[in-house]
């Protein structure tokens, strides 16, 4: 498992709390999250919701305009990852161990996708997450996600 310096560590110093909106302002503009233009929507005690606007260059099937499934994976990866730091109220380095997505239905062409990540259990090493994606009505999800994150550093004995 590799661990490197992380970009958001400086934004969310240890013990200084964790603000997903502030962190996404940085994360959502850089790298792959910036490419997808990921936007902060809201958060609670153990959840974070982000969104991605439909774009032609994110499409996997030009005939239908359906987004690449990996766009949903990226969205759920970021939202669930941030839900762990939100629940902890601090940043700790971690890596996605695995992520499963069930696609209940395709995300229609032109529609914005929301992804809510929830951290439902946390141990010293592992963050257990789940979440769902929707097009604006959480009662009509388009995908369900579940996964685990492993802590990659900063362990206290």
């Amino acid at each position, binding site marked *: 498992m590799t661990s490197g*310096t992380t970009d958001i560590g400086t934004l969310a110093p240890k013990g200084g709390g964790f603000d997903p909106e502030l962190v996404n302002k940085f994360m959502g503009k850089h790298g792959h999250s*910036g*490419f997808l233009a990921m936007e902060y929507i809201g958060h609670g005690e153990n959840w974070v919701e982000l969104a991605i606007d439909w774009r032609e260059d994110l499409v996997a099937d*030009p005939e239908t305009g359906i987004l690449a*499934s*990996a766009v949903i994976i990226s969205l759920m990866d970021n939202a669930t990852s941030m839900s762990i730091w939100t629940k902890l109220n601090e940043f700790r380095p971690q890596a*996605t161990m695995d992520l499963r997505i069930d696609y209940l239905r395709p995300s229609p062409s032109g529609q914005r996708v929301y992804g809510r990540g929830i951290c439902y259990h946390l141990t010293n090493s592992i963050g257990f997450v789940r979440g769902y994606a929707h097009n604006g009505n959480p009662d009509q999800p388009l995908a369900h996600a579940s996964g685990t994150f492993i802590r990659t550093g900063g362990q206290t004995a």
Partner: protein
Amino acid sequence: MSALYTTLPPYARALDMTVVDEIDGAPVIGMPFANRVQGRPGFLHGGAISGLLEIAAIAAVHQALRAKGSDANIKQVNVTVDFMRGGLSQMTFAVGEVTRLGRTMANVEARAWQEDRDKPIAMGYMHYLIKAKREG
């Protein structure tokens, strides 16, 4: 969808993916490192690795269907991605293997690696629904 060989979908093109090789008839997809696929500095974003796995998996299923003379469409049902190693700032490859191709569904395993194919950075396990264009 035989166009997949020559024309990868917009998402794949946006991430600069290309068909670079072939293994057991399945296209090997390459993706260069760039800011647009980066997660934490110097490493690939898990979602971009998943995207590479997805394109390789779709290409493998289409190839397997064509080999059977089928022009059916496919629809992804789910995917599980295991992230095994951090993706470094270099070229990444992926290939899909159709482990079972039935009449109604396909099981696919996709592997992503960088320098050594025996040291995958991620594996994807996908189920696709096969939807015939013409019934009976």
